[in-house]
């Protein structure tokens, strides 16, 4: 039985190697925050992190995920307090909310490398994630807000370390 490292825990699953990671996460592990949208890597609703990179879990086989660190929306932060999640609430981003786990995971991969993205960088990074409710402008604002909060936190953090 393959072992998965997901949200910091090791879990054994029972599925064929070619099973899309999406369905293993949703059905076997019953973590339903990761969503099925298109099954073809065209919408981004199923986005999770593999070793910190945003990937489409509908296009990732179970075999490809074994031995890598998987993070889902449930594991992005302990209590849903990742700066992006807070920003998503502050900007009141979600409408139906179905795509938003994927949007947040996609954005988190960007901010983990770059907490000062330009608007163009945000658009280029997020363009593969569809939102049928068309909440795009709020998504942009929330990413900018979270980035700013992360910069502030890290500046405060380094000052503290310095003293």
């Amino acid at each position, binding site marked *: 039985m393959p072992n998965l490292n997901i949200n910091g825990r090791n879990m054994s699953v029972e599925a064929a190697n070619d099973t899309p990671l999406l369905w293993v996460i949703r059905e076997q592990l019953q973590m*339903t925050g990761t969503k099925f949208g298109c099954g073809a890597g065209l919408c981004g609703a199923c986005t999770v992190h593999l070793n910190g990179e945003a990937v489409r879990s509908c296009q990732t086989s179970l075999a490809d995920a074994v031995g890598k660190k998987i993070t889902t929306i449930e594991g992005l932060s302990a209590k*849903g307090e990742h700066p992006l*999640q807070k920003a998503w609430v502050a900007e009141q*981003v979600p409408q139906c909310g179905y795509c938003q786990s994927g949007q947040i995971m996609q954005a988190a991969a960007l901010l983990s490398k770059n907490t000062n993205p330009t608007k163009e960088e945000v*658009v*280029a990074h*997020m363009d593969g994630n569809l939102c*049928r409710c068309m909440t*795009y402008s709020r998504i942009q604002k929330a990413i900018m807000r979270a980035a700013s909060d992360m910069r502030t936190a890290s500046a405060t953090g380094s000052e503290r370390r310095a003293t």
Partner: protein
Amino acid sequence: MNKHVKNLAPETTDLSRRSFLVGTAATGLVLGYAASGIDEALAATAPANFEPSVWYSIAPDGLVTVTCGKADMGQHVASTMAQIVAEELGANWKDMRVQLASNDPKFNDPVLGAQITGGSWSTMMNFDAMSRAGAAGRIALTEAAAASMGVPASELVVRASTISHPKSKKSMSFAEVVKSGKATKTFTADDLKAIKLKSADQYTMIGVSVPQLDIPLKVNGTAKYGIDVMLPGMVYGALVTPPVRYGATVKSVDDSAAKKVPGFIKAVTLDDKTTTTTGWVVAVANTYAQAKKAAEALKVSYDGGPNAKLSSESLFAEAKRLQGLSDSGEFFVKDGDPNAAFGTAAKVLEAEYTTNINIHAPMEPMNATAEFKGDILHIYSGNQFATRSGAIAAGAAGIDPKFVVMHQMWLGGGFGRRLDADMMVPAVQAAKAVGKPVKVIYTRENDMTMDFSRPLTYQKVKAGVDGDGKLVALSHDVVSAWPTQRWGIPDFLSPSVDKKGPLDAFTVNGSDFFYTVPNHYVRAIKNEMAHNATPSGQLRSVAPGWTFWAVESMVDEIAHATGKDPALLRVELLDGKGKNDGGAQRLRNTLLAAMGLAGYGTKKLPKGEGMGVACVSSQERATASWTACVAHVAVAPSGEVTVKKLTVATDVGTQVNPDGIRAQVEGAALWGMSLALFEKATLKDGGIEQTNFDTYTPLRMSQLPEVAVNVIANGEKATGVGEPAVTVVAPAIGNAVFNAVGARVRGLPITAEAVKAAMKA
């Protein structure tokens, strides 16, 4: 709302036969309408009978849980209902919670008498009932608190879930009053009606952008949608749908290869007596991945049926043929005699406007989970029309609808798609066939090719202008499939003006505009061929999405033909005379607001750029929100259109949650833009050609224009906001393209090729 909708279930709409109950049950204070007569209502004060009929309850810890009978598909309607209740109840927003109702008729819409969510109706139709429910709770709590404190109820003040007596400085929290067990009061319908509600200047909650209650669940993955339902022993179903949208039959199913797929249980060929689906097979397996593999391994052969050769082209050709017949269709509007007026008009303009098939494609693909438990069929699915969908599920199961319990879930997008009930059929029949709970999930390909789409439409508009340039006559023929007639509910149809029989007003709403035109007719013509080949549905904004495309384009064409400014011609036509009094003035004011905010006509734009206006009274004449748009576009020599800015103004009367309204209006406007420029589905050999987001391409972030939303709240009654802005954008863009480069495009979507061709012409 069309008048007829009121009669959908008249026996449940008569509030006088019901009684509003307030009492203390074991779980706290519960409030709601009893299902029927006073005797039953009084009997129902016992906790056991009380609980099922509630609108909201207050627990001993002070938490107020509002039960929302509306489908929440992102419009935050549950939160809105809670906000209206909280205003009159006097509850603190942090104490408010929401839950979604089952299909128990007690949760029916107080005006519609059914559980249906659409038409941007919810706020306007529930505002009064939720306000009175909140007020009744406040009165009951206040009287109980007065008794406990030994002070007159009239001296008490209710605020932020606390009832206080300023003179004695005594106070009790809602929690304490509920715990006291003294809040017991029955309100008759007359009592409820007699309650004096707050006036707008007394509001502390209505008009405030409180945080939407469903949002925290939607940023941490815990919101449960239909697709997330897990039941013990549940197995999964994947669909095999035929290449033809409707009318195919299964000739044979060869499951020999599917049997080799691990986990495969059974292939179930649907026997759909509800005629919702045709030629569908469900592969059932232990997991969805296995079910999908098995579905791919099934070899199904079909008889394609009567529609297997049809295409978008044939549907358009049939529409043109029908429009050309003098006795086609039924009249929706008939004022004066347009045909006579054309004879004496100084100038006559004629144009054809078309729209293509559009697909809802909510992000959550269609799904349903069915479980037979004893005599009861349980359905778990996010659905906009529990009343009808429960009946379809019952039909698929061969049982009485009263044995169906619909468990409402959050909807991963609705947009009208989830008014339909097709997903019930495979879930129910698969569950019946394998004797286990089954969750059926459509692939995106199933979802797109089996959509109950926005129908392809063909409209012919003829306008007559007199010697003074005044619009004196307009004839308007609308040819389409009839989405609402398909439901088979006579009360949703409207009588025609010429008494030729009922018509589907949801194909012509909007064409009965607020412009003053002395000679005006609108014919609703059913395209039977399209109706059969592409069973259509209600797509966000429904008919006004195409009728205003035609009307608002034609008004611009008239302006250009008579040398008038298109916006000022609209102001002239919105003179508020006769039947248009009131609505016309509000629409005129909204248009003027949008013009002002956009800087319309105040600056010279660079070459290739233009602004265009449109104004609409969507959804229906009786339920209008007054919405106007100024679109600013840039058109490249290739014909490619870039939308630089959409300025939208909308008069919503009273706004409950301003931030929520802005979100809805912005989303709606972007839907309008997406339909105007990017979304097109086509029929070929009886099937929808587009199968996923590579070929059916809604707007993405990189295509986002600047959107300026301006909400006018003038104290009139609250109107709906989820849809109207969808309808105003396409004509505004089309008119802007004309102003930019002189190209008049009359078909949606507006493609670069069409613009370029029109530039040359």
